[in-house]
């Protein structure tokens, strides 16, 4: 009888082997994989990477603007559900900035995610045999420009703690470089993109680059960012050179430039900086000093809106809503003409070309319903004037904290509660240590 047992066992095993022949591998049913793009990408695949890059730049941008805006005392983000906006960011009591909290980990990761997408785009375009070499340069120039801009935003947060530049191989990430070396590296990435654009043909769709979406336009955008980086590096002549190659134009609209744009389409995003007026619970309000310090008649007062009831949280209060982004699909500037005019003025002040500086500052002043500059013509006075104009012109666009840090004036910021602090930099995210 044992025999039959073995026979049946044999049948079972034979059946099992029979089944083994049909192994299953379902692949990824939900989305394309990285390998698909790196193989031999078609133009439409590369275009998808371009749009993904442009779209991804918007991810967590509100955290960045709230970080810079809150520490720079432009305003507060009151949230019934998220106390850390008013504790950690303002240094309430003994609170310090933590390396594991959303205000640094989320924007940091979102920027490097775009950097990764840019690196994939560069590699995919390089590997593709389905596009011309000028088209290749277009994709690569775009990817490098955006990558440099994203690195700059992270470096703005971590300052002396620095950033990683070379992040192509996730298993062998490049070392951290300090603030100065970081800026140098960003400038050199922008310069290599400039070279790319010289021979580029751009035929990919861009959303927030109206009027600047061809190779010549992208070059201007690249140079605008390069001008900002040069200013951060205090390379004043370079600022002026870059501005000359950018879309800088004192006669044009302040809002000429490139933007993050928003929409209600499928897979698209709404402007996360938009909060309707007079909300309660979740609000973004201007710091009391915004209205206190503004000059009479300055139309930039309209970047805030008087609330019908004071908003308070945790010992802080304000009666003005931030009203820079006035709808859920309002664009959010990446870089625009008004900043370029101010960069021009700044470079001129720092190279002692005061009359040119005053001319530029007056463009801003007149544009905002103020009389021409009549103050002292000294470096200190003009820098103070410049910082005032930057504060109100670029309100909640992510500048004031960085500007005051560049000029060593963080100590001038108001302290609202006993024990609050003004931070100079964010710690590196815990995952980087």
């Amino acid at each position, binding site marked *: 009888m*044992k025999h039959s*047992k073995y026979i*049946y*066992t044999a049948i*079972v*095993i034979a059946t*099992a082997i029979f089944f083994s022949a049909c*192994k*299953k*591998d*379902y692949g*990824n*049913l939900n*989305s*394309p*994989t*990285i390998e698909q*793009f790196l193989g031999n990408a078609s133009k439409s695949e590369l275009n998808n*990477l371009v*749009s*993904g890059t*442009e*779209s*991804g730049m918007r*991810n967590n941008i509100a955290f960045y603007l709230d970080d810079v805006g809150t520490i720079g005392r432009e305003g507060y983000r009151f*949230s*019934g*559900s*998220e*106390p850390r906006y008013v*504790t950690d960011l303002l240094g*309430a*009591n*003994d*609170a*310090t900035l*933590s390396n*594991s909290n959303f205000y640094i980990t*989320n924007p940091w*990761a979102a920027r*490097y995610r775009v*950097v990764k*997408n840019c690196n994939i785009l560069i590699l995919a375009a390089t590997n593709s045999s389905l596009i011309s070499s000028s088209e290749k340069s277009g994709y690569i120039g775009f990817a490098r420009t955006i990558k440099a801009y994203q690195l700059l935003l992270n470096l703005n947060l971590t300052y002396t703690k620095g950033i990683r530049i070379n992040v192509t191989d*996730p298993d062998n*990430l490049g070392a951290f470089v300090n603030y100065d070396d970081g800026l140098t590296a960003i400038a050199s990435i922008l310069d290599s993109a400039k070279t790319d654009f010289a021979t580029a043909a751009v035929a990919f769709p861009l*959303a*927030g680059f109206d009027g600047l979406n061809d190779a010549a336009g992208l070059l201007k955008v690249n140079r605008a960012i390069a001008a900002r980086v040069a200013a951060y590096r205090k390379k004043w002549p370079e600022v002026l050179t870059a501005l000359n190659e950018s879309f800088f134009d004192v006669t044009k609209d302040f809002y000429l430039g490139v933007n993050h744009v928003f929409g*209600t*389409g*499928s897979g*698209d*995003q709404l402007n996360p900086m938009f*909060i309707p007026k007079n*909300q*309660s*619970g*979740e609000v973004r309000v201007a710091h009391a000093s915004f209205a206190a310090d503004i000059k009479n008649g300055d139309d930039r007062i309209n970047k805030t809106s008087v609330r019908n009831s*004071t908003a308070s949280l945790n010992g802080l209060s304000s009666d003005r809503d931030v009203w820079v982004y006035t709808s859920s699909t309002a664009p959010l500037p990446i870089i625009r003409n008004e900043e370029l005019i101010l960069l021009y003025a700044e470079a001129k002040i720092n190279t002692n070309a005061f009359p040119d500086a005053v001319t530029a500052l007056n463009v801003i002043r007149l544009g905002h319903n103020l009389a021409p500059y009549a103050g002292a013509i000294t470096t200190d006075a003009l820098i103070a004037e410049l910082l005032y104009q930057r504060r109100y012109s670029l309100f909640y666009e992510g500048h004031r904290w960085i500007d005051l840090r560049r000029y060593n004036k963080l100590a001038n910021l108001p302290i609202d509660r006993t024990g609050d602090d003004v931070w100079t930099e964010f710690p590196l*995210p815990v*995952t980087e240590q």
Partner: protein
Amino acid sequence: MKKAFHFLPVILFLIFLPDWLFAQEKTITGKVTDANMAPLTGVTISINKSNKGTITDADGKFTLTLPATAKLTVSASGFKTKIITADAAQNDIQVKMEEDFAKLDEVVVTGLATNVKRRNLANAVATISSKQLNGVAPAQTFDAALNGKISGAYINSNTGAPGGGISVKLRGVTSIYGNTQPLYVVDGVFIDNTATSGGLNAVTNAASGGSPTSNQDNASSRIADIRAEDIDNIEILKGASAAAIYGSKASAGVIVITTKRGKQGKTNISISQDLGQVSARKLLGVREFTAEKAASLSRDPSAGAALAAQFTAAKTAGQIYDYEKEVYGNKGFARNTVLSVSGGGEKTNFFFSAAQKDEDGIVKNTGYRNSSLRLNVDHRITDNIKIGISTNYINSSADRGLSGNDNTGTSIGIALSSTPSFAQLHADQFGNYPANPFGASNPLQTIALMTNNESVNRFITGLNLDAILQKNNNSITRFVARGGFDFYNLETNALFPSALQFQAVNKGTSIQGATKNLSTNYIASLVNSFTPSDKLSFTTSAGITRESGDYYNLLNVATQVISGQSNVDQAGALTATQFRAKYQNDGVFVQEEAVINNGITLTGGVRFDRSSNNGDVKKYYAYPKAGVSLNLTSLGLIQKGLFDDIKLRAAYGQATNVPAYGSKFTSLVVSNIAGNPGSLVNIQRGDASIKPEKQTELEAGIDFSLLNGKLAFEFTYYNKKIYDFLMLAGLPASSGFSTKWVNAGDLRNRGVELGVKAKPVASKNLTWNTSVNFWLNKSLVTKYTITPVPQGSFGYVLGSFQVEQGKSATQIVGLNGAGVGVLGDAEPKFQMNTYNEITFHNKLSLRFLMHWKKGGDNVNLTYLQNDFGQTSPDFDAMTLKAGMPNGIYRISQVGSSAKVFVEDASYLRLREIGLYYSFNKLPPALFIKNIRVGASLNNYLTITKYKSYDPEVSNFGTGFSSGVDVDPYPASKRASLHLAIDF
């Protein structure tokens, strides 16, 4: 490979069935009684080595046709099994059964197709009877009914929201980011227990990043659909040593559920009706305001004066409200009706049940409804072939409200946390709600207008075929095939009309999800029992297995929704997401069990498995197991005397957990802008070489019973090691990725389980059955190859989990005033339970279950949330620091110490208590056999120092990081009345 081939082996064996030799047959009759000569009903008499048998009728009598001479096995639950020889000469067989206090003759499933008596079992397998599960104080859902009943388990209820959501961890955490939940098998069918998010994150933004779903969406577990009333028995295989034969799905243990089946004899009809009331277990209370306190809500003097005036006006008008009570203080009505019919003839038995329950929650417009139909049929085709079919249709619907963490101020608890008692939130005479000036949403409006519904249609069908292929005097070979499918359709409907305060931007949001899931599994095996002599028997089994799953989820988020509409096309904007997952696991197994001298049991087996989710889809992984038990009394090494039975046992086994679907791919997700389709690299990096996590478990123990089994002890020690545990590791975000699935290290769980069962009183008029269990588990991460980072909570500032070498896997770390240090551990120090049943005159029965969890910390952020809103009841008390109000003190700790948020969540809970009376001697003319009336309380008494709603909570659902408390749906308690009539 076509589906038809799955049944190929079945067909093959049916064709090649051996010819049968039929001996001369004879009909015998008999009677079965207990020790007091009282007749026993429902005793199974089966002819050995055949699929034939019968059961005794109401007078304990039976009739059976059998070959000239045959061995009969006489068995009944709670009695020792007897084997008798019936020969043709005998006509009236009298069998007297002995009570089996220690349950040594209980049959326990040990293989995919084999089982063994508890007397010879090498593992500690916990069982839960139907009465323990559902006969004391029934819980709302099946998963909730398990709580407190499994020695060795850490069971935690995630939320009080209607429709369940329970985490079951058997013998410690077995995975960090892999599956931590056991496999549920109902009548041989592997049950899908996926928690599918309804997309609430699109509104709450609890997890930022723009995904419409997150693990904070408070989804229920699909196992909650199963009806506890249909269950006859549950066996819990707690670790690999018992569960290895389930292979790649068994590393978190296996819960084997057997549903009720019909028995031969008179048709039984039973109707039961429960009526009950659900209410909040505990409310936290609210801060009592005065004009000064109202003014202190704002720092701005003029705003403060306005608030004080607002308070005074509200007070004068008598409009001070306790909103917490208004929202959570409702009493829900609960009803449950079950009709069951069972019976059968010589060849066919059936069990049918139809049931419906409908319960309101403690928050208005929340509740749970479950309707179920079950038909189980067993049929004997010939004396040698029997088939069993189990079918179950379930329709369930849960309205779960909106609770837990959010970042938009929309969840009810978060909204309440910033709303003081003098706020005016009630609707005007036209039904319009005012905006809440103290928060982003008006919770009364949210409750009145929103919908968050999960509704399920589910079919579960199991098939069981048992055919005897060969038999002779000392050998019998069976073909056993078992399998089935579990299919469900889940619709999630989350609707936030534009009138809601927080819909100012989106102007109405409708989130419609459709999920379908098909899971199938089968095993086909040959089982040979070979008995060369009375003192030696072998059971050999071998077979093949397959499990497959096909999950499909479509989630549409529509905004700018046309008023009064929910269809996603009736909207100005629409975002769609689709997710699919498929897997197939194939396995082969062999197992050998030998019983020597009725006292030594040796078991060995191995299963080979591969899975389409592994990095290498072709590779087979081997899962061996082995077990030995020595019954010292059966072997005669120790004479029966004081000790009735002593058994030493040890078992070893391996199991794995396959990686999550998709963990091997680095993909690009869709990210569009202005109508341009975009591909953006996913934050999760794939690992093409991902391996399953492997578990080995060694378990050893001693079981003994005294005083003729009236006092039984079970002691078990286990050492469970998990190798290559799967981890969604944090990557340096500068790589562009945030996480990656990795095989990150090893961990170990060691623990003991002690059980005592006793029957201290067993007189004619009074019986008392009691059991006491004690268990504890200690985990240790023995190897960790990646950098420890906080995970599973909200970072160091508020207290977080962090896996670290040399530390407990569930340690909680955070700021401690001097840096980052260990603040607690989610693992309980130990747990105990006791189940008691006291019966008077066989009519009145008192049953209760107590459960004590000692230790185990939670991260309690509910209080902090209320502090920030300045509404916590003890905000103004100064008990934590002299001269400083508690609320201010707790806020001042944010950013410097998280100690105050990590809180001991010990509790002693009277989980269930019920009192039942049976009228079982009714006049025959009534046609009613039995009427049972009862009253029960579930969750009524809890002793805990834990300060939030309930120590059982999990903001992050059913995963590794349970016990994070952020404004949950409060836990509830229930009181019920029961009436059951048997015809």
